[in-house]
């Protein structure tokens, strides 16, 4: 299945957002997520099904003004 993660198109075998995070090396990381511009809380990730063409954002704390 082709999805876009942080602006980059990629193939994944994961079917849920939680599985995708593990597949990409985010397990245990302090990150927040959105799918197709909608926020997905951490507790919901295991139930969040992924679909062809989904746009995933994975963000973390950073410096800001």
């Amino acid at each position, binding site marked *: 299945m082709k999805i876009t993660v942080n602006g980059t198109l990629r193939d994944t075998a994961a079917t849920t957002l939680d599985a995708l995070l593990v597949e990409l090396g985010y397990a245990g990381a302090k990150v*927040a997520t959105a799918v197709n511009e909608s926020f997905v809380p951490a507790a919901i990730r295991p139930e969040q099904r992924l679909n062809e063409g989904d746009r995933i954002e994975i963000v973390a*704390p950073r*410096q800001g003004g």
Partner: protein
Amino acid sequence: MPVFYETEITSRLMLGTAQYPSPAILAEAFHRSGAGIATVSVRREAGGERAGQAFWDMIAALGVHVLPNTAGCHSVREAVTTAQMARELFDTNWVKLEVIGHADTLQPDPFGLVEAARILTDDGFHVFPYCTEDLVLCERLVEAGCRVLMPWGAPIGTGLGLNNIYGLRSLRAHFPDVPLVIDAGLGLPSQAAHAMELGYDAVLLNTAVAKAGDPTMMAEGFARALEAGRLAYEADPMEPRDMAAPSTPVFGRAFT
């Protein structure tokens, strides 16, 4: 000291966390200035990068309040989703709401700002809107649920100071009970002192400190200017006048 959404802050300085020469200098700038609030953001992270955790550990060690921003968002949808992601990451319902309307000036999109402020307030956020000094916009933001207003002094990162003294002064007069913060555009401590003399409650800085030759010294300079300006405001300054008036007594002058 200013009170934002029932939380009293021990400083009138809010400091950004970007663009410092090093994390150690960032931390020292906070210590030396006594800044009470740190602004932060969220950005994309690669798998295995773990930079967010390291940054968060450093900010948490400062022991200050954290104010996440929605910097760079150009639509209501982006800003709302960014705020929701930040709330989860930083465990706070405070958000510095930015909805940028123009790429050159980075000025707020007033229409999107009001809409996003309403959505976020209804979702339980305490919104700190980065806005212009437009009185009608500020009234709409208060109606949308904002209990703090953060008008710009000048465009972000310019260091031009307070560009519209009249507008800022009338904002203070119209909102005597709403905390007002100058957000963006300051370059020098004298400009921060001026904001205090106008009766503003706090200022939010980043570039002016982080890009100074000695950021920690500049941070302390701003802290002292804020104290001086606030003292002047509370001391009830004299009224300016056009004609000279001698300060030394006229009575008893020799040769009369």
